């Protein structure tokens, strides 16, 4: 039997758009918090950061990302790694993210 094919990265990003930073009111993808996605089809690993180290929402957001990944059809295991290097920069945001923080 062939191993499952990797997911389309866009599907993972769409799932992660369900997760918001409640202080800013914008999703983690448009805020530019997603640093990397690796997947094997059934297991997805996401490397992400937060706007501030020591953010009180960090556990909730990471847990939310975990649930969002498990919500993708076919995904059986999800790992969310919080990383702080490189530090988050406003230049990482999309247009939607920039609008959410009033930078447009």
């Amino acid at each position, binding site marked *: 039997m062939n191993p499952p094919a990797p997911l389309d990265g866009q599907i993972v990003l769409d799932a992660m758009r369900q997760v918001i930073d*409640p202080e800013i009111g914008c999703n983690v993808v448009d805020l530019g918090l997603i640093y990397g996605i690796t997947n094997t089809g059934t297991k997805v690993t996401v490397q992400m950061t937060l706007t501030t180290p020591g953010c009180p929402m960090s556990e909730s957001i990471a847990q939310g990302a975990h649930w969002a990944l498990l919500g993708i059809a076919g995904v059986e295991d999800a790992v969310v790694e919080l990383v702080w290097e490189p530090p988050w920069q406003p230049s990482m945001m999309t247009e939607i993210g920039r609008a959410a923080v009033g930078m447009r």
Partner: protein
Amino acid sequence: MLTGLMALTTGSVWMMCRPSMLAAYHYNQYVIALTHLFVLGWICSIVMGAMYQLVPVALETKLYSEKLARWQFALHFVGFIGMVWMFRTWNLKQVGHFGSLLTVGVGLFVFNIARTLRRVPKWNVTATAVTAALCWISLTILAGLSIATGKCAAESFDGSEANVGVVIGALRPLAGLVSRFDPISAMHMHAHLGGIGFFTMLIVGVSYKLIPMFTLSEVQSQRRAGLSVALLNIGLAGSFVTILLSSPWKLAFSLVTISALFIYSWELCAILRARKRRPLDWGVRYFLTAVALLIPLSLAAIALSWPGLQANPFLGQLENLYGFVGLLGVVTLAIIGMLYKIIPFLVWFGVYSKHIGRAQVPALADMYSPRLQMIGYWSFLVALIVISAGILRESEIVVRIGALGFFACIALLLANFGKILVHTAHPRITPRVVVRPLKPILA
């Protein structure tokens, strides 16, 4: 937090019913009772409750003991209500008893936060400021208790050695020490220790962590931040001695404290200039307005600490105004600003954190009305100005009108916090958007 809001509401009704408290000189039982209602009931209840939540968050550690915090709350609750009531009836013996309960509670608070600070992984300016604040609150409470106990022991001692009880006898040396200082100077020293040492120190220290967090910025100069905290400590240490001794050097140490606040404001401006989140929400605006009020407060401090000043009715009212703007202007506005961040966060965390990623949940700003926040902000400033004018003019009617406006602001605040609390009973959770079906990429 609910205790604090109840005390604020009670205090604002009391101001409205008895405006003579602010329109006349402050050394009387009603003003002292009202001040302790605001300071212990409103400000300390909120600040201490928030510290149990915020210090672990701001310093990336865990609270040492929640059980100790619950015990402290019980002692604080009984202690402050008893103290306010007994100040009102001017029964200093009972003030001492209830004050002792409160002191035990503060001891638990200091121990709990100090043990929490020992777990801090990376020491920083916020941790230094919190540590200093713990030292100053300890000194404030001990000074207040010493003043009440000394005064009470002195009154209980009728001059004949035979009638002296064991406790009163033991407290005589303290009574002797307290009686060597001018009672008004001792009271002012006690007020400054708490107002600057605990409240202002925390506002400065915690904001170095929270304002960058809320505005997506960072401290621009650790050296400037550290200097502001160091100078605040030096200024207050000097003021402690010079106010107590009614020394002409008061002015010098007032200027040191003011320079600390100037450096703090400078750093705060730098943080705001570097922010990535451009619009300032109303919570942050409340806080920054509190900081801006430090300017008139500093000018009043210079005037009141000017050497050789002779007491007169206008100066008495200026002292009233100084205390009023300090507590109900600077500290209260800063607290309201932070509460607009803390209360939504706590409710969101309790109600929505387990649903994030599985359903659509509201953002913090969607949980209350920014319109009510804005109306509350402007009416608070108007009420503050009207009451200040009433204090300076010694006009009871003007103070009453201002207090009515102040009460209306508190009602708006409670209405908005009520909107946030509604989420605990009626959460706004909508099913999430379905992610499109899997389309594997063919190699």
